[in-house]
């Protein structure tokens, strides 16, 4: 359910922009300045994933955060909550702190790309709200993430 809203928005808002750009022609466009080529559908907010016990950003995480930054810049009506999550291993207090570090590492990167810090909030759920059940490396890898929620 959580992912529904951002997903819908990510589809609807860019497509409206696209339609607006097509129909109105030379009229002024409301949202971001008209891009030179015909606008493409902007990819939506996506989650980023972390290595074990790390809050450092992996290469693919950086790509995703750039995408997220663009989305946030394009969707000025939304603020974004970044939830830090951990896998079930280790101890829960440390994981709560590690989740906080993960959420903040993602936030810091996006702020460095020019997004206003006031539009980003962070929270940690530590190991309390895993996405994937089970005690496998796949499940753990899914659960070490920063989850982006448009609000």
């Amino acid at each position, binding site marked *: 359910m959580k992912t529904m809203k951002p997903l819908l928005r990510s589809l609807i808002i860019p497509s409206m922009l696209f339609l607006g750009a097509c129909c109105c022609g030379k009229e002024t466009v409301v949202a971001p300045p008209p891009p030179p080529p015909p606008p493409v559908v902007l990819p939506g907010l996506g989650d980023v994933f972390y290595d074990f016990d790390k809050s450092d950003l992996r290469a693919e995480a950086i790509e995703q955060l750039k995408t997220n930054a663009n989305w946030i810049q394009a969707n000025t009506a939304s603020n974004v909550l970044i939830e830090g999550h951990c896998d079930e291993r280790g101890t829960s*207090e*440390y994981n709560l*702190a590690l989740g906080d570090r993960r959420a903040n590492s993602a936030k810091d990167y996006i702020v460095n790309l020019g997004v206003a810090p006031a539009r980003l909030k962070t929270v940690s759920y530590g190991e309390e709200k895993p996405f994937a059940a089970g005690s496998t490396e796949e499940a753990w890898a899914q659960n070490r993430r920063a989850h982006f929620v448009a609000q």
Partner: protein
Amino acid sequence: MMHFYRHVLPGIFVVLFSLVFFPFHLTAAESGEYIAIRKAGSGNIALVLNKLDANGRKETGFAQGLDTIIHDGLDFTKLFSMISPPLNVRDNSNRKNVVINFGALNSVGAEVYAGGVVTIKSGLVTLDMEVYETAGAKLLLRKTYTGKEGGLRSIGHAFCADLVELLTGKKSVFGSKVVFVSNKSGSKEIYQCDFDGYGLEQVTNSRSISMNPALSPDGKHLAYIDFTTGRPTLYIRSLADRKVASVGKSSVSIDPEWRNSSEVAATLSLNGDPEIYLIKTDGTISRRLTNSKGIDISPSFSPDGSKMVFVSSRNGLPQIFIQDMQSGQTKRLTFSGRYNTQPSWSPAGDKIVYTTWENSGEINIFTINADGSGLAQLTRKSGENKSPSWSPDGGMIVFTSNRKGKEKMYVMNSNGDNQRNLLQGDGEQTQPSWSLFR
């Protein structure tokens, strides 16, 4: 016959003498003397706990109840070897005075004898107890305990507390509480029970996530973390009037622990980096204690509050450090184990208990002296063992283990002996914290 009198007669004289001259309580010097003798031979105390006397049906019922409560209570401490009373432990034929057969007690190897009488006086259950050191037929304690019919546990445990404190010179577990987290209602809520698992009560009902409860040393406040607002927030609840102060609502709060009854320390991530702060019971921050890049969590304090042990990831994976509260000087405590968390400073001040997440995937409990020497492993080959917390006397540790499937609370002696389940029931039990007060 001669043999019998040789042993019993001196006992009679001692009892009569003590009835006349001994005060209700043993003096400190005398108990200190006994403790000094005990320390020489450090094993369990060989105790004969005689069946309580009672006349009348009601009294007999109370006596049987108290027998069980006192026996189970003393057994819980694992300080005693319980010896069955010898058949001729007492001679009641002689007048009104109870005559204790110290010869018989000595011959079965008893060091200490405890016995008593249950009566009902002005509607109250009245327990008159006597404790003797058998070797010298010396009275150690004579005291009367009273309470209502429904309060047999308190009456029995008041005696157990006196006996343990008399013989060990330390605070006992009797009257102490354990607060912990259980998900048995479907969400993580805080519960409390007596030291032995009795008297389970639900403390929070936020239907969110409640975590890391810690009772203040005076028992007046409960600090805990709760997600009701959507983020982990520190709450300090006054137990008398249920007033709640909250801290760091716009931040992430982690793992509170009390420095004394008016100051709690917890991690707050106010600037995107988790640091430990000292906070007053009204929720105001008094000062920041750590300043390092990386995670700083799980403070616990030396008994005098002058030093803090905590977890830091300043060197990479989490390790345990000790910080001097005045100078701020910090040194690393643990060098064995790649992932060490959950430190707790012993009430005696000498040891720190913590957990290591081992390469095997097990999580085990260790103790180490505050100076870094004397590393000892308390759990092994039993899955994940977490969240160790000392009993008020430091003689025991409560912790959780998933050794039989679901995570449940266990207790053990502080050297790892006598590991056993504390509380049955549905759901998982996590993050126990043993109160310092009684």
